[in-house]
């Protein structure tokens, strides 16, 4: 079984992984980072979104072995020294979540969106999170949450 070495949330992790193991399962099962969720099996829902080398990626579309040597940030690694990331704060302030299941992936996608487009229009926000499904909020409060974070940024 191949060994992979992946830096996750600033810490290098070495573990064995079957070639077919998806990155999301590696994160959840091997590293116990269960904040990254699995909401579908066809790469539509985006609940598994993480940052791979700084860019958002659906961790269900990547094998763990493909991520060997990369740097990954998951939702657990977003807050720094107990201070929430501006997007986490935005989601809290603006009621950007209900059941919370899509939230980690939604926030990670929004991190990438604001990285590319620090002051997005509402249309740009909606397009930027179109790869992430939320069934609870109707997205309006999520848009508000991202706007909130953009203003703070």
């Amino acid at each position: 079984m191949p060994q992979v070495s992946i830096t996750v949330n600033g810490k290098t992790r070495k573990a064995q992984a079957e070639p077919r193991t998806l990155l999301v399962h590696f994160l959840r099962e091997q590293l116990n980072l269960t904040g990254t969720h699995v909401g579908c099996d066809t790469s539509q829902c985006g609940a598994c979104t993480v940052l791979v080398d700084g860019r958002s990626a659906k961790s269900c579309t990547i094998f763990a072995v493909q991520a060997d040597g990369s740097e990954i940030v998951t939702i657990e690694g977003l807050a720094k020294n107990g201070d929430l990331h501006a997007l986490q704060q935005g989601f809290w302030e603006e009621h950007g979540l209900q059941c919370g299941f899509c939230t980690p992936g939604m926030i990670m996608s929004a991190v990438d969106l604001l990285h590319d487009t620090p002051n997005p229009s509402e249309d740009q926000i909606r397009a930027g999170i179109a790869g992430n499904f939320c069934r609870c909020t109707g997205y309006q409060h999520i848009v508000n949450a991202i706007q909130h974070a953009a203003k703070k940024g």
Partner: protein
Amino acid sequence: MPTAPVLPQVLPKLVGQRVKRREDPRLIQGRATYVDDLKITGMQHIVFKRSDVAHGRIRSIDTSAAQAMEGVEAVFTGAQIAEFLGPMPIGTPFPSPPHHPVAVDVVRYVGDPVAVVVASDRYVAKDAADAIVVEYDVLPAVVDPELAMKGQPGVIHKDFPNNLAVALVPSGTGVDAAGNVDDSAIDKAFRSAEVVISQRMVNQRLAPNAMEPRGVVAHYEPGKGSMTIWSSTQNPHILRTFIAAMNGMGQDQVRAIAPEVGGGFGCKINIYAEEYVASAISKRLGIPMKWIEDRSEAFVATTHGRDIIGYVDLAAKRDGTVVGLKLRLIADIGAYNMLLTAAIPTLTMMMANATYNIPAIRTTLTEVFTNKTPTDAYRGAGRPEATYFVERAMDMLAHELHMDPAELRRKNFIQPNQFPFTTQVGAVYDSGDYEKALDKALKAADWKGLKEERDRAQAQGRLVGIGLAMYVEVCGIGPSSSLPTGGWEHAQVTIERDGRISATTGASPHGQGNETTFGQMLADQFGVPIEHVTILHGDTGIVKQGIGTFGSRSQAVGGAALHMAGGKVKSKMARFAAALLEAGEEDIVFENGRIGVKGAPASGKTFAEVAGFAYIPVPLPEGLEPGLSEEAFFEPSNNTYPFGCHISMVEVDRETGEPKLLKLVAVDDAGNLINPLIVEGQIHGGLAQGIGQAMIEEVVYSEDGQLMTGSLMDYALPRATDFPRFELHSTVTPTPVNPLGAKGVGEAGTLGSTPCIVAAVVDALSGFGVKHIDLMLRPEKLWRIIHGGRA
């Protein structure tokens, strides 16, 4: 010694405020625990082998290759499961065919389980399930419900001829409690009519799609003889009841836990085969079991919603006065009766009266088995269907009479002085002011301005239309005579020895934010900071009794129970305070973290001091037991009936037929609101699902019963780009049936949005002679209308 908390001088009142949620810190940091996040030492993984034919007799099942795989602990066929687990019960009093959790001889829908694999790892379990070979003698698939009613092309359950699960239940004018039918009044109403609108309408099948698929962990501990079951459920207490019964255990021996639950929308009310199977195998093998649903599996294994055909006849005078309504319903319930399946379409009958004075109504209902995934509750559950049928018919009537759809509705509203209002279909509406909601919506949307805008756009050749729909729904269902689970909710409020408050509720939230709203209520009730209040839920080991969260009941029933339990313990605490302060109990006031005597607040004690005294009462005041913990069951005398008005503007692309929602204005009246921020979120979510039903969502089966929309690649779930910014407004008409005046809001958004969007699209395409378009508004269908070919 308890320490007095450091408090601000004056605590703000929280009820009615936009308090941000207390649930969120764990959720936004990935620190919450959903079922799939649980691990127990020795835990094995379950995967189901499912039927890939819609209807067939199992000829053979070969599990040998699966059993030989490394890591496979056990494989069970349906027949082997049946040796230790019986057919599944339902929760309604309707007749129901035997339903084995894993099919024994006949499979009746694509996705019907046929075998179960238990393995050390989920990947291995899936490999093993793939290695099971099942041969079927394929039987004719029964797909069209109107053919199914004639027994064509076959019969699914031998004791249900013509596939009739429920045959022609009548209700309304002239139907008595025993079901005797007198047609004279309804016939007279239709004879007196000057215009009759008749239309067959389809309220299509939907897949709920909570973002967290279902999942279960079952842990039977042989030494203790007890079972703990974690499940992504809306109602752990109901789960406990059924899991105990099916495993031959007492309810005291089963603990059911709903950990963090990632959305429900009705589909996590039902108690499913996977929950029974995981618990029974755990009990049999004595090891913990985990089953997690895949999304594509959810499309076949989790109950669907809606799927009702309505034949609507609406009779009126030419001045717009409605004189009668006939609604003949045919519900395609799929292959089996589940927990509440048979009851859901009865809510469509119950709400056929809508918001209008209709002197004569007749509804009939036929529920039909087909070779499809069973239906059960889905957000709105029967009420969106009723709203859709009646509101579409009202629009067609307005069109026929050249009346403004708003003015036609206004002419027929039940008036505020008519409440409580007993409808022709037996509901007793608690309170309402429909004209107020309509007027607010017309003003907020600038209905006149919208019409002018539409006319200008149409003059430029753009296909723009506007639509309006009223709704009334039924929520917080009670008393127990109207809900098979029991129509109450339970709460317990405990003042801890340090003056903090812990409270349990039988409501089991999965996104509704009850930790916040219930915290707001108790903070106000006791005059303490919300940070000192903990709301516990979703665990039958902690929450003594409960029903659960569905039917928009958490606040109206669960909130009321909490308020009552809080009132009981507050009254006892006042007696302890009166003894401490040597004052009369009636003079005791709770405010700003202190308990004192009216008019002399400085004389008081801190909340914590009084709490401490209650647990070490020296001397014990006469007539009091030590401690501060009280519980309450609240059972409402009646349901609540929230209502509202939704208005939309839609443009259809002439070249592609694609509809685009330009505007949606919603006025909702849910009675008194605890937290308007959370209420807005609930309405947004409901609107999104109602709009999804109108515009893009539909479960589609092929003629041979194959599910064509079996993954998120095929079933269109709304994205952020599908919606404009919703404009919300409210009116407040409290209910008299509970002490909070709250009506419930979880489902409201799904009711008005769907018909008002269809109305807008019909309006946009009215130049092509179209009067009604069936759900959903597929671009191809609209393109054919625009370009001459009928869909």
